[in-house]
């Protein structure tokens, strides 16, 4: 099992952002994506997660192997922490949410409505969702936003356990997580702006 990206080109809103991107991840490996704001990291991750089609190139991994975590955590404010996690566990067909609660130090908050959590606690709940998906490839978009130092360490441990269990992680982040991982700066793959009339996009529809 591996994740191989070959000569990938992606676009956001019809405008190409990255071109010619290739990398590969084997079981137990992590890759950190870096690059300035607006370079297309989120678009790249959304494309790999299967939310949008690439312009060109290939993504080898099956969508069914990928667990995606976006900027928004997908937390329902009126459900409790436990109900939120149980929902995702049921959707992914996995049963036990205890390791996820313990892994992100949420055990004391299980009965609290998620709307009453702090931003960092919400993020931890959002990341705990990854552990209940039971999927091997984690695709994470800025996972450490609003986490304090201790929570970042918890998160790094969770990723390390996941990698040790044969999982993979693709993480776009600006901070150093202290993981033993390859780093890929996507800046050199920036696509040049298309010339007028050069593309065959349906621009009338965008």
């Amino acid at each position, binding site marked *: 099992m591996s994740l191989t990206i070959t000569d990938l080109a992606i676009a956001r809103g019809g405008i190409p952002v990255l071109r010619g991107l290739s990398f590969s991840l084997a079981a137990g490996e992590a890759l950190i994506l870096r690059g300035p704001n607006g370079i297309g990291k989120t678009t790249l991750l*959304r494309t790999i*997660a299967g*939310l*949008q089609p690439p312009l060109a190139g290939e993504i080898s991994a099956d969508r069914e192997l990928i667990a*995606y975590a976006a900027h*928004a955590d997908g937390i*329902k404010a*009126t*459900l409790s922490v436990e109900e939120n996690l149980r929902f995702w566990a049921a*959707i992914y067909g996995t049963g036990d949410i205890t390791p996820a609660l313990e892994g992100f130090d949420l055990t004391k908050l299980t009965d609290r409505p998620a709307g009453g959590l702090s931003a960092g606690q919400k993020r931890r709940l959002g990341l705990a969702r990854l552990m209940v998906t039971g999927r091997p490839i984690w695709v994470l978009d800025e996972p450490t936003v609003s986490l304090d130092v201790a929570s970042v360490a918890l998160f790094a441990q969770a990723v390390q356990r996941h990698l040790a269990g044969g999982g993979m992680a693709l993480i776009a982040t600006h901070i150093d997580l202290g993981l033993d991982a390859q780093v890929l700066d996507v800046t050199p793959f920036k696509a040049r702006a298309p010339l007028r009339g050069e593309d065959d996009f349906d621009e009338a529809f965008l």
Partner: protein
Amino acid sequence: MIALLIRDLKLALRAGGGFGLGLAFFLIVTVLVPFAVGPETGLLARIAPGILWLGALLACLLSLDRIFALDWEDGTLDLMATAPLPMEAIVTLKALAHWLTTGLPLVLAAPLFGLLMSLPGEGYLWLVLSLAIGTPALSVLGTFGAALTVGLKRGGLLLSLLVLPLYVPTLIFGAEVARRGAQGLAVEAPLLLLAGITCGSIALLPFASAAVLRVNLR
């Protein structure tokens, strides 16, 4: 899949879930119409089936933009699209949850509101039956409209305008069943057409809604 349905029902029933909004709107319409057109029982009895159907339809319309908007805002829709549930199942369950929280209460409350509108005695059975058969179509059509406008801030106006023409056939045949029922005429033809619309939309529209949603999530 059941988990998604249960979650949606739970969310609808908890604070800010909007359960009862449609019902309250239906109540307001049926309470106010007699004040507006006057207390003449004969007139009220004649327009009752149409007004009740119109009230139910508008009550349904009122809660449509909540179907996907909340899940889109907090990112759940993106995460759900990458989950093992097929998109067609997601939109079908969303429509079902909408019907259970909006359509079904309207069906159950309709006899009471019929009383407020002096609906003739023979009409109650047909009113309830026509609403029970017709409101699922309203939910499924509305889900399609909501999928089309997901991601638009304050997309409610566009949603209403898009869904309005789609609702017309359901309204025509639904109100016709109730009217004919109230007057003691044969109801088979409009009833069958109404059932046909409902079955057709339930069979076809989830595919359209799912396709539209996939495009909108890009």
